[in-house]
């Protein structure tokens, strides 16, 4: 079962949340960030080349121009491969774990998988950063202390959705995590 909804992020950009319910114990949430805009790309390229041309008129060396082109290309490739995240996916599988995947604009995917045995809970935290923002995070269990938290792993760092989107994801995750908590209390 698949459905798609559109939300907005904290800066006002448009986000698309795609939900897939594979089975009652497996759900996937896919947040697509706004794409790289042609306007900002053109602006940056024009600035760099104007600066290079200014330098060229000063020092009369054509190497400056070729260097500027080279730098622009490398910079763009590096940005697409290392910085610009296109899509962030959260896959939650009951009794296996939670997997976060970030797909970059160049196609690279970076995945992290956290086993269910380490997950304490999934919560929405509030942070004050010039204004109040909300973020979804996974709390990990502390191996030493049974009721402690060893680490907080924030989710959807690049997409930065607003509270309404986070509540949807939170409710779905809690439904799956509830399977885990119920039997552990009865043992």
């Amino acid at each position, binding site marked *: 079962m698949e459905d798609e909804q559109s939300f907005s992020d904290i800066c006002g950009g448009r986000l698309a949340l795609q939900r897939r319910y*594979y*089975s*009652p*114990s*497996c759900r*996937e949430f896919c947040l697509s960030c706004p794409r790289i805009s042609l306007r900002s790309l053109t602006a940056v390229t024009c600035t760099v080349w104007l600066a290079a041309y200014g330098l060229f008129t000063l020092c009369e060396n054509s190497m400056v121009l070729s260097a500027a082109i080279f730098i622009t290309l490398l910079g763009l490739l590096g940005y697409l491969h290392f910085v610009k995240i296109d899509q962030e996916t959260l*896959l939650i*599988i*009951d*009794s*296996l774990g939670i*997997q976060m*995947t970030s797909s970059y604009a160049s196609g690279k995917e970076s*995945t*992290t*998988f956290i*086993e269910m*045995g*380490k997950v304490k809970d999934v919560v929405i935290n509030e942070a004050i950063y010039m204004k109040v923002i909300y973020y979804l995070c996974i709390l990990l269990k502390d*191996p030493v202390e049974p009721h402690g938290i060893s680490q907080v792993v924030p989710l959807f760092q690049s997409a930065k959705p607003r509270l309404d989107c986070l509540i949807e994801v939170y409710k779905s995750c809690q439904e799956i995590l509830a*399977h885990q908590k*119920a*039997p*552990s209390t*009865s*043992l």
Partner: protein
Amino acid sequence: MGLVSRGTAAAGLGPARAAVRPRPPDAVPNLISTPPPEGAAPGSSRIPSMVLKAFFPTCCASADSGLLVGRWVPEQSSAVVLAVVHFPFIPIQVKELLAQVQQASRVGVAVLGTWCHRRQEPEESLGHFLEGLGAIFSHEPWLQLCRERGSKFWSCKATRRQVPTCPATSGEDQVMLVFYDQRKVLLSQLHPPAALPDRQAGDATASAVGLAAVFDTVARSEALFRSDRFDEGPVRLSHWQSEGVEASILVELAKWAAGPICLLLTCLLSLVSAASACRKANMLVSVLLDVALGLVLLSWLHRKDRIGQLADALIPVADHVAEELQHLLQWLMGAPAGLKMNRALDQVLGRFFLYHIHLWIGYIHLMSPFIECILWHVGLSACLGLTVALSILSDIIALLTFHIYCFYVYGARLYCLKIYGLSSLWRLFRGKKWNVLRQRVDSCSYDLDQLFIGTLLFTILVFLLPTTALYYLVFTLLRLLVVTVQGLIHLLVDLVNSLPLYSLGLRLCRPYRLAAGVKFRVLEHEAGSPLLLLMQINPLSYSRVVHTYRLPSCGCHPKHSWGSLCRKLFFGELIYPWRQRGDKQD
């Protein structure tokens, strides 16, 4: 939801196989459908409504029907399937083989269930037969996996014979099928993000938790993978060894030819345990690269008589450096940067240093006939490795700039003495004294003549301070320049020595060998069929590879912090950049 239709039980074998089956199908009672109400056996401690995960190797997905052999992990409610035993088999021999494997590998291998890879038309007799096998090899829970040939339709069923504790749950569990590449999981090494604090190396049972248990199980079951379905043993198994028979005879021959070479390499490295084989390999590769680079450098040096050119250039360079130093001293003896120096002290210091340089030049010229011979022999040492050549270069620089080092020491000692005297007399000026016993400043009443002499000396020292300070500053800067150059060379040597090239190469070519974790992918899913996941290995990032496998460098980095360095410079204490903390300081 997630459970399968009853139609899967009605599968069938071809009639040709019926003749060699060990027992006739109708003789086996059908135990599964009516669970006898015995007392709950104290078997596996499982969590009642946890989904059952079956880890199935991808190589067995196309294997013929048979028994599933593997390990059951009750804490995570997961079944790790290691191999499929094909028909025909004799149950006693299967049990013997499993007992052998269990003893050899200390892994609890058992028969987990049945695997059915059927053709289009289902046959009734196989269903009863497969269920009957559950009586021969009893296991809780009993897995029944079934796949239709040529389709993606899988069906999984896991049944339990004992009465469950909560009456609400039925005797069947939800099953999730996770496919894994057996060969890759066998060869890979998990690098958990945080090492468990009390992990013993030689645990008898698999103490790994979570998914590490799956890796552990597969890695330790080498004994099970020795015989194959193509071998002529009593039991025919299908596992990762069964696939990979190449279609091309040339590729197959090349693999066989490469076998002895790989065996030789592994023998060289297998003298140690697997845990540090990677480190040994890294060291070996680093040393080999070092020697290779050294030989390249050697061949470059000896071509076109470069050594002779170097030797010829050395003496003029040393002369040039000495001349520049002389100019510098002349400048200091004049009015450097418009500052007015104390004439007498200036002349004394300047002449002293000039004479020192004169002596040094004399020694260099004395040695000049032997320079070429020495350089030629030193150049030969490059065949021992690039790092040796670089270290010798660093030492040659130290020797050639020895006079700068001497000047620095003279200037620093003089300055240090002056600062020491100044601070002591400043305390006298204010009527205080340093108490050596108590290591603190105490007040003290001085006599008049003590005060008079003290003030006089203090004034003299204060007025001579700029001159000494300037000399000290100049020579310290020169010394720091030389130290920086030497430090860069040492850094390069460290880099060549400690970079784990073998691990980086492994990460590049065989990324599944170094695993940071796993990643899952949901395969095509249809409503009503069980969830199918593919487990792939998430390789380690390059930065973590370097961090984990970095060889220990000789550690000749300066151990001072910037603050202590500045403090030492200000007070004129000597800086020894290559001495470790804890060595005797004078």
